[in-house]
């Protein structure tokens, strides 16, 4: 009850700003453009090249194509929409009105996560809906249930990113700290998480004077286990668990640690842990 009220008010506040409209236009254009681009590429890849690619273990479908764009845009917009969620209200004093009413700090934290996720989810779902019409118009072969699954999975990804950033915002005492924290999180999750294992792996081959495997599929298991722990990879892995399998690299998934459904577990951990830590700090804070 209290949670729903806080979430509703948060969404109401945002929907009165231009953010919701800007994001709606952005996602309608982005997803529609990606569907259009896919229809163009599909034609190019239909011939010998596609067969050659498939032989190297590379398969291709609409969802892997879309995911490349959605991950980047959703992580970035989640950051912009959420980084001030708690820290900004503390700094301005809005939180005194919110917590002056019978809401717990947990209600406020979770209400913010839901409210900000809605601010992101509405434009994203609108974008998917418009892009579906575009797909039909262009004659792209789309299974509607799969497409809907992918849209929902993308909303889950948005929820995870929002909860990470709101968690950081709850840990911060000032908006400056919140900004620094959110940017750091973005750099770590979106850049370093892939970069560090890759550099480590290449460094290992270089130092031990071995040649790089011809196919990335032959990289050691730990490399994939580690990189799959980032939320964006987890989203891609989870996608493979529920939608027609497609990956840029086809790896041996007989190992337990490389099961695709673990992507959902990893997303769940990213959903919960930042909020637990954020709540622990926020609950102890003097406002």
């Amino acid at each position, binding site marked *: 009850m209290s949670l729903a*009220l806080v979430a509703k*008010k948060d969404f*109401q*506040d945002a929907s009165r700003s231009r953010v919701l409209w800007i994001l709606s236009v952005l996602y309608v254009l982005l997803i529609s453009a990606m569907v259009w681009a896919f229809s163009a590429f599909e034609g190019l890849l239909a011939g010998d090249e596609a067969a050659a690619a498939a032989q190297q273990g590379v398969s291709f479908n609409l969802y892997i194509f879309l995911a490349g764009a959605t991950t980047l845009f959703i992580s970035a917009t989640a950051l912009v929409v959420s980084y001030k969620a708690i820290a900004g209200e503390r700094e301005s*004093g*809005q939180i005194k009105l919110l917590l002056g009413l*019978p809401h717990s700090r947990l209600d406020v934290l979770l209400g913010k996560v839901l409210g900000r996720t809605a601010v992101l989810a509405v434009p994203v779902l609108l974008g998917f809906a418009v892009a579906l019409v575009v797909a039909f118009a262009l004659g792209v072969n789309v299974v509607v249930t799969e497409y809907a699954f992918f849209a929902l999975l993308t909303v889950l990804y948005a929820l995870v990113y929002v909860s990470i950033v709101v968690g950081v915002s709850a840990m911060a005492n000032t908006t400056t700290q919140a900004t620094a924290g959110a940017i750091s999180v973005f750099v770590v999750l979106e850049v370093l998480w892939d970069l560090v294992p890759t550099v480590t792996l290449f460094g290992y081959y270089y130092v031990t004077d071995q040649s790089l495997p011809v196919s990335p599929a032959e990289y050691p298991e730990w490399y994939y286990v580690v990189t799959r722990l980032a939320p964006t990879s987890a989203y891609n892995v989870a996608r493979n668990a529920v939608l027609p399998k497609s990956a840029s690299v086809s790896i041996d998934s007989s190992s337990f640690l490389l099961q695709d459904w673990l992507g959902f577990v990893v997303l769940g951990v990213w959903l919960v842990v930042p909020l637990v830590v954020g709540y622990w700090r926020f609950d*102890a804070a003097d406002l």
Partner: protein
Amino acid sequence: MAAIKLDDVTKRFDEVTALDELSMTVEEGEVFGFLGPNGAGKSTTIDILLDFVRPTSGSCTVLGMDPQRQPEAVRRRVGILPDGYHVYDRLTGRQHVQFAIDSKAGDDDPMTLLERVDIADAADRKAGGYSKGMTQRLVLAMALAGEPDLLVLDEPTTGLDPAGAREMREIIREEVDRGATVFFSSHILEQVEAVADRVGILSEGELVAVDTIDNLRDATAGGETLTVTLSTPPDDNALAAAESVDGVQDVAVDGATLTISCQGNVKMDVLDAFESAGHEVVDFSTEETSLEDLFMQYTEVSA
């Protein structure tokens, strides 16, 4: 049961001691004025009562409940006008009040509350465009939602013009008549004097006095200033008679008007002295030592 009870509450922020073993009780149904200069610790005390800030040591209860253990239960029965708040700029006044009503599961009509604070005509405007005074009225309307048992008002007259301050006092009286307790802080003495049953004076995190305003005035060394106008300028006899009255400290003459500083209730004795010396008293007035003097006396002595 006490509406508010603080027991040896201490709050330190890093090296700064904001409250030093503060103990205080506010009874149910009274208007308690919490007085002190800026930085004395008034807002910190209020923040502790609402669980915005946790005490370093000591304990407190609000309506018999511990705000740290049951913050929501406390806030369900308390109406709050906090210090240093900020409204949601993009939401309207009506939406703010509706949110407060919904949060307290009340059944008030938001327009009735907005009418009480006299901003009903701005109900559907975004609160971001309100003046400081209108914003203060809006947050007061939010505090009144759900008929709270206790109103906690931090510097309620901030941003209000004199008419607004008077309306604020009227609302405080209405709420007390309804049965609520009102705890409000101020650094403006006239506000406290006009409406409070009892006053606590806070200085540098310590309570230096708690009493009714009358008793506080008696307890201080201050007295009265008596202004007397006679039909003719007084002669030396009359002056000597007036000066000899017990309690009179000083007599200044300006034509037929005399300004007399005195201690205690000696007004009638002074007037009698003039009349028996053959003068006619045309007019007289008394002025009590201002609360401001009193307040300065308390806060400076301890400073």
